[in-house]
């Protein structure tokens, strides 16, 4: 039942000793990067500043903005020749953050994913259908490598094309899938359309749900529709990608692999640490990464440590499913979107105002985004054709930036309420 029993059930005291040694090594490695090298000099800190794990608090946080400012190579801690892979947090232009891996990073990451998948019951005899986007996004290749490490037969199906997904599932008797929760729900409507009952007519017994936050209710609904066990998965590209934290058969919180990551939960306002059990922002330090190790990376994901010992026997602490974000990032169909990206694009189009509203909806298990945009008063010339052209242009521009196609609604100038201070730009109507 364990992939690596000695690591997964390690004594807490031994784990902390291991972490301390790894932390010192990590700091020595990060010092070689342009960004941290300079920072350590300015602040007069180094691996010698670390006597205990708490001493990590002497080091400043690292944020996504830091990564962007030192794009692309400011954080790499090895000669460029040692890098074998790059990934990107989302495929968008300008605001993308890139991460780099050495061969060792890929091996360790694959092993972490193998550990996660093995934990839920996946074995060498399984057929694994990976219904995630391959490419720059870490979710596709990460799971692919992990499943191969276990020795399962991998079907690299990629995202979308629902009928083909179902066909593959039937033809090759898929037993394990990796899927975005909103897509799992959408796919169920296609099963109904094709008059195929996924509970009876497929052999899938395990699903990994990832790439977007979802509720417990949604997970149970997916399990009910498909008749399989669905496990929650957490990861972010800055910490490899998926495989950071994963649910065990207890399905009660995700074990965060503390042999690879040092975990802090902070109050996002005061930045002070909070006690185990209290909600806050997850902050992580990579303990094994070589290519692009990061210290105290602010994930902006809100969660808490679940106190107590898990009956599964693993000693690595559990985090609760992600409750939300401490910034304004939106996740739609697994794609990360910042309202700022939309604002920037709209500012480039002179014919519209910059006051806009994003509305997220869920209908028939399908998520959609509507962007309401105010037309510039001067632009209006009494011509509906001209407005149609403008709407098309905005749709195309946003599609190019976000990689998903929003519905664009043109509205009258000054019709979108302006919020006090920071404008309210997002209405999320998505419920379970």
């Amino acid at each position, binding site marked *: 039942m364990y992939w690596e029993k000695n690591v997964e059930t390690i004594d807490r005291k031994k784990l902390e000793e291991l972490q301390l040694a790894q932390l010192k090594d990590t700091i020595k490695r990060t010092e070689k990067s342009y960004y941290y090298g300079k920072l350590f000099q300015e602040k007069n800190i180094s691996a010698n500043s670390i006597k205990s794990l708490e001493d990590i608090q002497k080091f400043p946080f690292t944020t996504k903005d830091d990564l962007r400012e030192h794009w692309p190579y400011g954080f790499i801690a090895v000669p460029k020749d040692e890098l074998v892979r790059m990934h990107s947090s989302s495929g968008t232009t300008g605001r993308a953050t890139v991460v780099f891996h050495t061969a060792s990073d890929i091996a360790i990451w694959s092993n972490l994913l193998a550990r996660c998948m093995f934990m839920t019951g996946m074995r060498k005899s399984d057929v694994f259908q990976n219904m995630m986007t391959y490419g720059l996004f870490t979710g596709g290749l990460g799971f692919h490598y992990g499943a191969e490490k276990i020795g399962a037969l991998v079907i690299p199906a990629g995202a979308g094309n629902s009928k083909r997904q179902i066909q593959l599932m039937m033809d090759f008797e898929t037993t394990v899938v990796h899927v975005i929760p909103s897509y799992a729900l959408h796919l169920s409507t296609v099963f109904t359309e094709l008059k195929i009952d996924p509970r009876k007519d497929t052999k899938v017994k395990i699903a990994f749900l990832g790439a977007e936050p979802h509720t417990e209710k949604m997970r149970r609904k997916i399990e009910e529709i498909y008749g399989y066990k669905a496990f929650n998965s957490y990861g972010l590209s800055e910490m490899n990608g998926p495989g950071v934290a994963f649910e065990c058969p207890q399905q009660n919180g995700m074990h965060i692999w503390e042999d690879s990551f040092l975990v802090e939960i902070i109050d996002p306002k005061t930045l002070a640490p909070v006690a185990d059990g209290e909600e806050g922002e997850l902050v992580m330090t990579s303990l094994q990464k070589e290519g692009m190790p990061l210290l105290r990376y602010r994930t902006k994901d809100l969660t808490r440590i679940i106190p107590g010992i898990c009956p599964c026997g693993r000693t690595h602490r559990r985090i609760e499913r992600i409750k939300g974000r401490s910034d304004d990032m939106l996740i739609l169909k697994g794609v990360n979107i910042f309202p700022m990206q939309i604002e920037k694009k709209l500012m480039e189009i002179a014919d519209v105002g910059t006051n806009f509203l994003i509305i997220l909806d869920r209908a028939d298990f399908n998520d959609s985004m509507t962007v309401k945009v105010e*037309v510039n*008063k001067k632009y*209006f*010339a*009494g*011509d*509906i*054709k001209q*407005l*149609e052209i403008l*709407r098309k242009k905005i749709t195309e521009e946003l599609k190019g930036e976000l990689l998903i196609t929003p519905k664009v*609604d*043109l*509205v*009258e*100038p*000054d*019709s979108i309420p302006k919020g006090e201070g920071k404008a309210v730009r997002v209405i999320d109507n998505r419920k379970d």
Partner: protein
Amino acid sequence: MIAYQISIFAENKPGKIAHLTSVLGKEKINIRATTISTADTFGVINLIVDDPKRAETVLTQAGLTVHLRSVLAVLIDDKPGGLDNLMQLLYQEGININNAYGFVLESSKKAVFVVDVDQTEKTEKLLEENGFQTLDTQALSSIEPTHNVK
């Protein structure tokens, strides 16, 4: 002569036209003709009114997005073939119509056909050379059901 059509941009939802007509009603501005074109979630309302300049001012003050557009209001005979005479002429001259609508005068002898074309002035000249009468705002506003328009 050039007439003016007032165009209003509005979202396609209940109450939008009611807002517009309440403003015009209060200001005692008379509507001669209307058309609405919609594109899913939004639309454009076109009006011929007796005082387009004032309508523009009061509607803008009421927070609406308004555009004044020059159009040709052509007097035609209210009988079979009456509109066809006009259309054949514009077709022969290669003039494209972006939007058009008409209203019948209660005398039942004449009708007014409003055309929105790309080259308004050129078309106006052409129409007058061919014996069509175009009405300006003043003429339009003085059209009364019982009056004969010259």
